[in-house]
């Protein structure tokens, strides 16, 4: 053992800690053999194996060994560094060493969990540990960069998730920019009539929150807007927002709606987006009565003034000296600086046309669940009366569950809310039409608070439940106009054919069509299903892999409103925690130039995507701005004279790793 008592300067030997992780690692890798092997490696002072190195006693071993044995370096062979690198760096620091005198070996995710051959897995573990020991001996003491955090927060998406997150932050005194793509906030929830399982009216619980957003002094609300560019990093993002022209001066519009009344179109003729085309609107319109902001929009596609320039402009006339209408309004670009970002861009319903045999778009009697939400809504296109496209009231209704969910041809996952909203719609439809309602389900999933009770209630109301996947929807042969739902009833073991007047498709929730573009814009990742990926499914469910960017609501995956709100609160809390810390510590993995060795060839300068490298003419040398450098290492790999180096990823360290994994006994 070399120089045992010289603590803190990293001159001592290496301590290696092999974690069993219960049986997660020890079940496949021979941890005892591995520790014994590690103990014999050059430079290793001590090697231990322990049940859970991340536990308090586990960390205590590390700290004590650093003090008692004068360790200079620490290697922990356990799970992925994404999970516990921070934990062990902290333990290393608390033991009295520079936290970067540490290296982690990923035994669990990259070895024991993916291999079945004990011997091969143990051999691999030895290779990895050997590489880490060799590497860590070359580690340098580093300082984390501390950068101040801009306290302002950007929230993208104004559904219930974005609304709740924005209000939480604003109530805590933080300035929030809320950017919503549509002319109003509210998201999908604004389209519902009632919400399961309590059946409280969606508008009654949502509208107060929407108006609170509008009137909150700490919230800047930009509707009809989109983020087009994001620069910077945690604490200091620079965001560009495009504000589409709505041809109304927002500050001057009082929301009196007289212009809509006065529009030269006496009748509303344009299919109305908010009512999913079931109703009509005029070219100048308010998406729905409770829209926030209460500011109308002009749709240039259908407005006569935009099409021909020859409209009488009765809207302008009636607006009078309020002067809120501006046909020349241009797109505006805003640039804002924020420290943290919450993404709450929600979901889109599965497109029912993708399953042609259900006949959506072919048979007028087939509706999506969201359309039915509008039909049962008192403010909806039919004033809350459930009338079919042919004007009749349905007497029999079939609800098909799991449309676009739990199916390998569409989405494999369960959309989590469809069973419950189908029960809700069954109840509402029955209440409004007294029809016979049939639910065709695979399994009823009612795992939330008061959900099972709600299911029982709906069942007791006399709604029919048929366990079976509908295989076909076709018109009744004798021209009754009804549609036959054909399914195998798996409880009875026979094929049922039930004629109905109305078919409701419980379409699942899927990632938005532009989720990939949004993901790129914000530099985060998506999971296989296309939803934004959280940093850890259990322990960091609202974090992303990009520091300072958080997720809330259905953009992360299907969920109901209670879960969405809880997650939005969590995302707001995470953002607050960062903002209130005032500073953030960044990984010190930046690149730097060895000035004496730089030949001034300028190869590196154009390579840097962040323009962090400049060529200093006076010295004829390259220089890296540490604040701008994000530490990718592209310039390091490209420098022909080897004079750019990268902290934490020094060439020498990586060469040691390469030799280490290959230096077979």
């Amino acid at each position, binding site marked *: 053992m070399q120089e045992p008592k010289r603590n803190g300067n990293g001159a001592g030997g290496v301590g290696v800690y092999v974690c069993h992780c219960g049986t997660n690692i020890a079940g496949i890798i021979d941890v005892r053999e591995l520790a014994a092997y590690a103990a014999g490696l050059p430079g290793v002072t001590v090697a231990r194996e322990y049940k859970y190195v991340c536990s308090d006693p586990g960390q205590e071993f590390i700290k004590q060994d650093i003090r008692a044995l004068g360790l200079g370096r620490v290697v922990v062979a356990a799970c*992925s*560094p*994404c999970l516990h690198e921070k934990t062990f760096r902290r333990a290393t620091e608390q033991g009295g060493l520079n936290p970067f005198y540490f290296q982690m070996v*990923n035994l*669990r*995710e*990259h*070895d024991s*969990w*993916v*291999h*079945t*051959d004990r*011997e*091969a*897995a143990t*051999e*691999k573990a030895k*290779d*990895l540990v050997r*590489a880490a020991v060799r590497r860590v001996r070359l580690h340098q003491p580093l300082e984390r960069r501390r950068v101040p955090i801009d306290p302002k927060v950007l929230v993208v998406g104004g559904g219930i998730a974005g609304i709740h997150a924005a209000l939480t932050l604003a109530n805590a005194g933080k300035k929030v920019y809320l950017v919503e793509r549509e002319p109003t906030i509210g998201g999908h929830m604004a389209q519902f009539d009632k919400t399961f399982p309590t059946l409280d009216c969606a508008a009654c619980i949502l509208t107060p929150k929407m108006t609170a957003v509008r009137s909150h002094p700490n919230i800047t609300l930009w509707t009809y807007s989109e983020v087009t560019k994001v620069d910077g990093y945690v604490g200091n993002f620079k965001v560009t927002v495009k504000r589409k022209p709505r041809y109304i001066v927002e500050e001057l519009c009082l929301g009196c709606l007289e212009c809509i009344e006065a529009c030269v179109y006496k009748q509303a003729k344009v299919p109305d987006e908010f009512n999913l085309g079931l109703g009509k609107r005029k070219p100048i319109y308010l998406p729905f009565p409770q829209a926030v902001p209460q500011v109308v929009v002009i749709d240039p596609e259908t407005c006569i003034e935009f099409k021909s320039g020859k409209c009488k402009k009765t809207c302008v006339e009636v607006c009078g000296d309020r002067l809120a209408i501006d046909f020349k309004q241009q797109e505006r670009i805003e640039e804002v600086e924020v420290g943290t970002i919450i993404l709450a861009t929600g979901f889109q319903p599965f497109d029912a046309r993708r399953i042609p045999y259900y006949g959506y778009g072919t048979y007028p009697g087939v509706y999506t669940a969201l359309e039915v939400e509008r039909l049962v809504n008192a403010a909806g296109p039919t004033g809350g009366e459930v009338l079919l496209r042919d004007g009749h009231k349905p007497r029999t209704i079939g609800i098909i569950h799991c449309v676009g969910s739990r199916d390998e041809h569409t989405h494999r996952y369960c959309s989590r809310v469809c069973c419950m909203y189908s029960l809700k719609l069954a109840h509402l439809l029955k209440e409004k039409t007294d029809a016979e309602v049939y639910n065709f389900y695979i399994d009823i999933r009612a795992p939330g608070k008061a959900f099972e009770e709600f299911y029982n209630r709906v069942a007791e109301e006399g709604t029919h439940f048929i366990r079976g996947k509908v295989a076909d929807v076709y018109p009744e042969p004798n021209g009754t106009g009804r549609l036959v739902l054909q399914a195998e009833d798996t409880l009875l073991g026979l094929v049922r054919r039930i004629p109905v007047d109305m078919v409701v498709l419980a379409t699942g929730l899927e990632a938005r069509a532009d989720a990939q573009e949004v993901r*790129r814009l914000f*530099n985060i*990742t*998506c*999971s*296989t299903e296309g939803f934004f*990926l959280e940093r850890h499914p259990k322990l960091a469910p609202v974090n992303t*892999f*990009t520091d300072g960017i958080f997720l809330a609501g259905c953009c992360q995956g299907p969920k109901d409103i209670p879960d969405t709100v809880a997650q939005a609160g969590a995302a707001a809390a995470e953002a607050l925690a960062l903002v209130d810390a005032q500073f953030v510590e960044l990984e010190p*993995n930046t690149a730097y130039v060895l000035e004496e060795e730089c030949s001034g060839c300028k190869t590196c300068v154009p*390579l840097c*995507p962040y323009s962090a490298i400049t060529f200093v003419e006076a010295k004829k040398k390259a220089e890296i701005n540490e604040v701008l450098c*994000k*530490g*990718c*290492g*592209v310039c*390091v*790999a*490209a420098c022909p004279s080897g004079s750019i180096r*990268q902290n934490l*990823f020094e*060439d020498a360290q*990586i*060469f040691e*790793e*390469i*030799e280490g*994994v*290959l*230096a*077979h*006994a």
Partner: protein
Amino acid sequence: MPDATPAPRKFEPRIVAFFCNWCTYLAADLAGTSRLKYAPNTRVIRVMCSGRVDPQFVLEAFARGADGVLIGGCHPGDCHYQVGNYKALRRFRLLRRLLREMGIEEERLRLEWISASEADKVKAVVNDMVEKVRALGPLRLKVPEEVFAEEVAA
């Protein structure tokens, strides 16, 4: 040493993998949490970006006894650092040519785009590469003297 290796019965390729921190490394983590099973022949070295992979790393790996080298990065357009993976691709193409001249088969060096959610691709790529390299047999590099002799003879 109980496992002092006599002449190995069966050739087990050794593959050094450089995985970028933001996509492929995470995909390999996900393969773990999903308990996918794949061949135990790779040894992953984490780099921040595939663009950090210096051609010398690859050459060093071959020189030190690797039978194959796998570079994993984010899909085009997805690099956490915008364009690092394009740099990696450019270097990869050059490297392959260089390796060919050195008599190292193309299949021994592989560049793959594997996003954080593509755990199954990690499995597929590793298994496939192990099979291909196994079929090629161990890498035998010409020792410098041989190269030197060839150059003199030329």
